[in-house]
């Protein structure tokens, strides 16, 4: 039986070489074998300790370059730590480089065997669970076609199916569950639950803090290779988000109050936050900012981006005056097939019906950096929305509803 993962004071040092370090024998000989030694070292990870018990899932969050992937590799025994150690027993399943282990010229079937054996199974074990792998990957029709004819999604399904069928005692997942279509995602999550129930210890890296909060039993937050916080998901994720917000505040430049097209005053640090690298120049609620419960509502956001910004995220939320968020939606510009934004533009969120109960609300809108690290511009409690409802004043929701009555016959009850 597995004992989970124990990581003690783990540290990893990387060497930085001279930019003109010779990379060929010829150059090295010409430069007299100089510049081969590293110029300086830096710690990519330092003093990282944690434990993942069997059946537990640890989420790792942090910015790009915080050392998350390095940590995951060290746990998997790829590369060696300069300090501390990793203790674990049993087979390691890994979803690190998605689909990288597949060979394009071989068929799906051949790849299953190669990947399965490379992941630590014997040929016989692969043969035994072959059908189950193919079924899980939903590739029965294509299994004898070369993998180069597969779509990215199909390759990913195949890689995932093999990895979860190795009966791992430890599973390492790097930003995997956030890709792929929804039905397959939920299937993967189901499978991960099964593995957890069987006592598999899981380490999961993700940029999606919501997902980490939802799935993980513990969360570790890394910044520049060091642990900032480690513990209950709610607590760590809360701290992380708070820092992200303060990062946004720090980046918010000082600027005199400004009026939007619709005449709303924007005051920096009061109802407006962000680096203002891209700005929201106007927000319109259509048909009006006073609607009835169940009406449709469109939220038009006009933006202006003086410079080219790659794949920003747009977010809209509707919150009550007390700050409770009732609705939250976001989209990446990539999903809108805008790979980047520059100049003026408009994006509209259409709600077919808004079944909130009557009251006063605010529509908060924002444009965010592509990894959600900070906001470019975020307008908070700036655009009021009031909703009328004849039937209901209490509660949050007011979906269409009706009451029905029916008589129960005494004779039927007796028969039961």
């Amino acid at each position, binding site marked *: 039986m597995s004992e989970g993962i124990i990581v003690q004071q783990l540290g990893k040092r*990387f060497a930085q070489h001279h930019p003109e370090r010779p990379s060929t*024998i010829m150059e090295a000989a010409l430069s007299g074998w100089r510049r081969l030694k590293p110029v300086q070292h830096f710690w990519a990870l330092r003093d990282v300790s944690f434990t993942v018990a069997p059946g537990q899932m640890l989420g790792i969050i942090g910015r790009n370059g915080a050392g998350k992937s390095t940590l995951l590799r060290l746990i998997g025994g*790829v590369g060696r730590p300069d300090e501390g150690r990793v203790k674990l027993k049993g087979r390691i399943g890994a979803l690190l*480089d998605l689909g*990288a*282990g597949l060979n394009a010229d071989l068929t799906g079937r051949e790849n299953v065997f190669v990947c399965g*054996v*490379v992941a630590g199974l*014997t040929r016989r074990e692969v043969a035994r669970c072959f059908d189950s792998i193919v079924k899980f990957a939903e590739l029965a029709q294509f299994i004898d076609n070369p993998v180069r004819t597969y779509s990215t999604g199909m390759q990913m399904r195949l890689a995932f199916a093999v990895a979860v069928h190795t009966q791992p005692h430890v599973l390492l997942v790097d930003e995997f569950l956030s890709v792929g279509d929804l039905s397959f995602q939920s299937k993967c999550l189901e499978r991960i639950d099964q593995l957890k129930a069987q006592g598999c210890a899981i380490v999961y890296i993700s940029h999606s803090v919501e997902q980490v909060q939802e799935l993980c039993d513990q969360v570790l937050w890394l910044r520049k290779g060091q642990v900032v916080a480690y513990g209950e998901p709610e607590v760590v994720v809360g701290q992380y988000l708070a820092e992200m917000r303060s990062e946004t505040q720090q980046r918010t430049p000082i600027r005199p109050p400004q009026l939007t097209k619709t005449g709303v005053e924007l005051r920096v640090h009061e109802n407006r936050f962000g680096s203002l690298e891209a700005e929201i120049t106007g927000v319109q609620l259509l048909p009006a900012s006073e609607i009835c419960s169940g009406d449709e509502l469109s939220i038009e956001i006009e933006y202006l981006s003086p410079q080219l910004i790659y794949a920003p995220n747009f977010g809209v939320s509707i919150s009550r005056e007390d700050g409770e968020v009732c609705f939250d939606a976001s989209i990446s510009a990539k999903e809108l097939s805008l790979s980047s934004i520059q100049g003026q533009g408009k994006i509209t969120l259409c709600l077919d019906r808004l079944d909130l109960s009557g009251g006063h609300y605010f529509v908060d809108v924002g444009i965010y950096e592509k990894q959600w690290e900070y906001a470019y511009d975020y307008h908070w409690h700036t655009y009021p929305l009031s909703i009328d409802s004849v039937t209901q004043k209490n509660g949050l929701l007011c979906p269409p509803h009706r009451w029905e009555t029916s008589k129960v016959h005494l004779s039927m009850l007796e028969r039961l």
Partner: protein
Amino acid sequence: MKAFKLQLTQGNLAQRFDILRELVDRDMKLLYKRSTLGIAWTLINPLLQLVVFAFVFQVVLPTSISRYASFTFTGLLVWNWFQSSLYQATGVIIGNRSLIRQPGFPIAILPVVVTTTGFIHFLLALPVLIIFLLIDGIELKPVILLLPILQALQFMLSVSLAYVLAALNVTFRDTQHTLGVVLTLLFYVTPIFYDIKHLPANYQSFYNLNPMVHIVSAYRAILLEGTVPNWEPLIIIAIVMMVCLPIGLQFFRRQSDRFVEEL
């Protein structure tokens, strides 16, 4: 490192063998799929070389080597195995990033895979060599049963050198190109298509430093002459390799760890 030790203590040899088998199988399949002639190239290549040497040394500059086809073909097969193993193995760390990054994957198996693939090609060409021997009227003696010992020794030599070369290629990415030139040179200073007996005596001591000289001579002894090979140099090679193999392996592991850490 850690994962290797864990797996070894579990006595997972069968699984290691399966990895070897699958990866060799993969290499063979890829070779087969990427060209129409596929595995036939294993034979066509040395046969063409043989035609060239036979033309030069039988017609243009006749030599006194008897049974020239058998003599040269033996040398060519042995040499081609050695050369292809080293050449392919040099790129083995760089070309298999995804395998090296797989937790628990025994990286040290990669040069073994390449050498085994070469060995299979050697075995596939062996029947053709036997036909040459029979045509040349050579009687196969029971001493041919020593063949596996020679093959094992050559295997060990190739793998030891492969570890060092693959590791070197991580730091110096032109190792493979340089090796190509060095191997061509070595090919000419190994008696493949000529007989070492024809060399002046003062060159012979220099030749004796090349392990492939002894290995090629040993193959010829058991195949062509039907005599027991000269054991002395072979035993020395075996001892030297037993020392070099662990050192090469260590160097290889350190460099592949370094390679994974880049990026």
